[in-house]
């Protein structure tokens, strides 16, 4: 029954998508926004039905579905049984379809609410969303069908299946359950949907861009809408990436949070390009320049999300030659090719729209700093892209295996990151058109002094390692630059009102923030990124690592902590067995906590998922991992992660900036419109 419902949902979504393309194209021709409400509802209804059917099958333990039989187990607890709905390839495409439908719904709503006479870009964008939706519902109906009925079951899964929902079903008694790593931490239920919201959200700016190109409507109308849609996606993507790093840190037990793994890179590349677009769009809105470049960025960001999906879902990372093993690989690659080739063909045939953008006056200006920022961010994305694809290209050409790992990325990216931090500090202090270098230097003097002061403090009380001091100086500079800008403006406007009392100053600050919320929201995001940079500086350079063999009762001193191995423990929970060691942690003779690093065994799995135990303090984390445990004792790995909380805090602050900007903007038209 679930199969029937699910397939009905997919086909409904597919039909709605085709319908939306038809009505969208008609609307774009005649400049009308009517007639698209029904198809949009149909898409959303179909996508929701498919997702619900899959989730219901999981909750109801319906092992007659191949997807359930191979990815679920009766013992999988809530909420991981729900998360299993997108843990494997087919389910993840269903979630993709649903989120795309939700974005389409919101896009339609915003198009209708604009109430622009003769709006052609809006309906055109909906038609583009319809085309993308056809692709994703199309693969659900064919190569990534999640509702295949199991026709040949074995004890712990399904070996043959049929796409026909009425096929004679054979259900195994139980399934293997999701990948143990995916049910080891609650973050795994939150992080992938966030990332998907970010990834799929980038379809909307792409749709506006393609619509504008196809309809030959240059100008800034598409750009305003694209920028807002990008901000939505960017906020989700930022949250998703930070939660992903956090998850890796909490679960993967290697003490790190970012390994330049292709999967991580796939999420970072669109983020970098979207960040570049958020800035370069402002240059076009204010100065009319960079029109062509903005099209390149929205097309690039969307293409990178498809590339990322291809890289992570086709098996191509394991080996170039394995990607044809699943049908989804070639299909995604074909779609990527269509997107890139089609977009740039449109772009080339409409180049007259964007050819004569005005030249800019001076490099020392707001637009100059935005251009520098765009250069750095796109080179950053290019470095990540090169490093990710290079092994695949080498293997495809010569058959040789090469690895490109963290040392390469750090060497390339660290200089770029420092340059970006400098630009983030200086940029907001510049004026549009042409900044006066002397005034710029004057307004930056205090931030520079504060930054150097922070550097001196670091040298005196913490460390003299160059990278750490540089990260502190650069990060503090960014934050101090934003704060001093706010104070300067508030003070100036307070003076203009011929009064300088402190009470008025806080009120003045509030007025400044309310007057330009999106600018200050951007500054908040800058501060978040600066905190991340400082955090990375600390953890990458000051972390300590060691390991020790211990028997119950043994003690060891590590990085200022007294660790005592009390006893081993063994617990059986519904879905797993947990074996671990209780370690008492003391500082200066006072017990601060008890840590329980452990290995979790899911189902029949005997290798165990090592799960770290973490003690968080202001200066940093103590991170304990069990390498081995047996009757004789334990092999304990001990790491410190100084200042790592700065990363999580910074990431959430950066995402918070996006949220602030979005919510502040929404209020404005309401008052203006009524």
């Amino acid at each position: 029954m679930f199969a029937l419902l699910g397939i009905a949902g997919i086909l409904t979504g597919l039909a709605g998508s085709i319908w939306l393309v038809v009505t969208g194209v008609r609307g774009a021709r005649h400049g009308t926004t009517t007639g698209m409400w029904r198809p949009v509802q149909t898409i959303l209804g179909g996508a929701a039905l498919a997702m619900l059917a899959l989730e219901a099958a999981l909750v109801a333990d319906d092992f007659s579905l191949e997807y359930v039989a191979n990815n679920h187990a009766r013992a999988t607890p809530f909420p991981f049984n729900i998360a299993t709905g997108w843990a494997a390839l087919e389910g993840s495409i269903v979630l993709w379809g649903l989120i795309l439908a939700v974005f389409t719904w919101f896009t339609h709503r915003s198009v209708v609410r604009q109430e622009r006479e003769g709006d052609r870009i809006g309906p055109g964008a909906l038609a583009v969303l319809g085309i993308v939706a056809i692709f994703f519902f199309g693969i659900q109906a064919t190569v990534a069908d999640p509702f295949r009925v199991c026709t040949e079951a074995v004890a712990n899964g399904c070996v043959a299946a049929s796409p026909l929902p009425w096929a004679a079903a054979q259900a195994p008694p139980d399934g293997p359950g999701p990948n143990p790593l995916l049910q080891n931490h609650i973050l795994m239920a939150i992080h992938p949907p966030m990332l998907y919201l970010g990834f799929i959200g980038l379809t909307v700016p792409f749709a506006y861009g393609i619509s504008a190109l196809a309809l030959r409507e240059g100008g800034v109308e598409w750009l305003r809408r694209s920028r807002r849609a990008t901000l939505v996606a960017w906020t989700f993507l930022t949250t998703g990436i930070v939660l992903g790093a956090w998850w890796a840190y909490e679960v993967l037990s290697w003490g790190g949070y970012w390994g330049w793994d292709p999967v991580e890179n796939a999420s970072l590349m669109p983020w970098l390009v979207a960040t570049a677009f958020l800035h370069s769009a402002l240059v076009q809105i204010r100065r009319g320049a960079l029109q062509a470049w903005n099209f390149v960025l929205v097309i690039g960001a969307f293409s990178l999300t498809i590339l990322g999906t291809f890289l992570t879902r086709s098996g191509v990372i394991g080996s170039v030659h394995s990607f044809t093993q699943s049908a989804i690989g070639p299909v995604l690659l074909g779609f990527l090719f269509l997107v890139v080739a089609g977009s740039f063909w449109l772009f080339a045939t409409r180049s007259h729209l964007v050819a004569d953008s005005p030249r800019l006056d001076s490099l020392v200006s707001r637009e100059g700093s935005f251009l520098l920022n765009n250069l750095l961010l796109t080179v950053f994305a290019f470095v990540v892209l090169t490093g990710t694809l290079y092994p695949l290209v080498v293997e495809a050409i010569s058959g040789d295996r090469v690895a490109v790992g963290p040392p390469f990325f750090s060497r390339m990216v660290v200089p770029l990151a420092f340059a970006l931090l400098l630009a983030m500090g200086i940029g907001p202090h510049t004026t549009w058109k042409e900044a006066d270098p002397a005034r710029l230097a004057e307004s930056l003097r205090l931030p520079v002094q504060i930054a150097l002061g922070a550097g001196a403090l670091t040298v005196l009380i913490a460390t003299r390692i160059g990278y750490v001091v540089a990260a502190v100086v650069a990060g503090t500079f960014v934050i101090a630059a934003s704060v001093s800008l706010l104070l300067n403006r508030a003070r100036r406007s307070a003076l203009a009102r011929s009064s300088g009392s402190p009470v008025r100053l806080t009120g003045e600050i509030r007025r400044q923030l309310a007057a330009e919320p999106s600018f200050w929201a951007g500054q908040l995001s800058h501060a978040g990124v600066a905190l991340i940079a400082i955090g990375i500086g600390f953890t990458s350079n000051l972390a300590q690592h060691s390991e020790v063999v211990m028997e119950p009762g043994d003690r060891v001193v590590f990085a200022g902590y007294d660790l005592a191995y009390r006893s081993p423990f063994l617990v059986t929970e519904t879905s797993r067995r947990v074996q671990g060691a209780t370690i008492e942690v003391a500082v200066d003779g006072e017990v601060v906590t008890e840590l329980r690093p452990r290995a979790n065994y899911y189902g029949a799995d005997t290798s165990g998922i090592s799960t770290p135990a973490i003690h968080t303090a202001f200066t940093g984390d103590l991170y304990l991992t069990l390498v081995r445990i047996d009757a004789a004792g334990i092999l304990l790995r001990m790491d410190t992660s100084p200042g790592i909380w700065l990363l999580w805090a910074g990431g959430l602050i950066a995402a918070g900036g996006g949220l602030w900007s979005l919510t502040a903007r929404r209020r404005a038209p309401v008052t203006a419109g009524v």
Partner: protein
Amino acid sequence: MSWTLTAALAVFVVAAVFLAPDPAEDRARALGERIRCPVCQGESIADSPSDPARDMMNLIRARVDEGRTDQQIIEELVGAFSGSVLLDPPVAGATLWLWILPVLAVGVGGGLVLSRFRPRKVPQSRLSRPAPTPLKRTAMGGMVVLAAGAIAMATVGQFRQGRVDNLAPIDPANISNETLEAVIAANRDDPQIVGMRLALANRYFEDGDYQRAFPHYEAVIEAEPTPIQAGAALTRLGWMVFDGNGEVELAIDLIDQALEAMPEDPFALYLKGRVVWCGRDDPNGAAVLFGQVLAAPDLEPDVRVSVETDLATAQAGSSCQ
């Protein structure tokens, strides 16, 4: 506060950093971070808690204690595990372009950014001066790109390591059989694993563990080996079918195949001689082959002595020992 104070602060911070004593760095860990754990998904051996990674870290620690240089240690690991374990690809060979492309991107992108700006307004008094010709501007742009490239290459050059690819596979004598098995199992499809497989099989062969050696030699032959690798595998397969199963003709056939790939290989000739002597009971045939072995110029002295002994016995017509 004035700029003087700012400058003083800057000097203090920079001096403090540059005059800092060298931190007691963990060389083994730094090296480990540059080596991919061959049985994991994209982790370095410094990070991975898996047994092979720990084995390799222990090897690095031992080498560091012996006083070997970073270069020597990396070369040994690459020799044992193939170049695909380098997370830090060399600025040479197949990964040269990896380092050049981003530098080019900076140059091209920088040029594009500069081209977006109007040339500075020329003051009235200097209007008579000719504006830069397109040729001149192109040349200047080119110089900027070149300069940026040179600076970036110099930075990269600091990290340049010598060529480490194309080393002959050596027997990773300090790495346990279990680790090698795990690494081979995890990299089954990697063509570069053949050398390691052969080394491991040879190790089993020398220990007389034919059971374990056999499948590895078979896999070597199936995996498109070089003629030398194929010859080495065929020779030993031949010896094993004779020594283990008493298959005389099959053994000679296999060793003959090996000799086609590497004619005059003394080890193959010697083993063939032993099979002919002991299997076919043909001391004269064996003596001819032993003679060919001794014709090889670079035989180890003790090997030469033992082959000479065998030759003398066979020439006397005695049956094999």
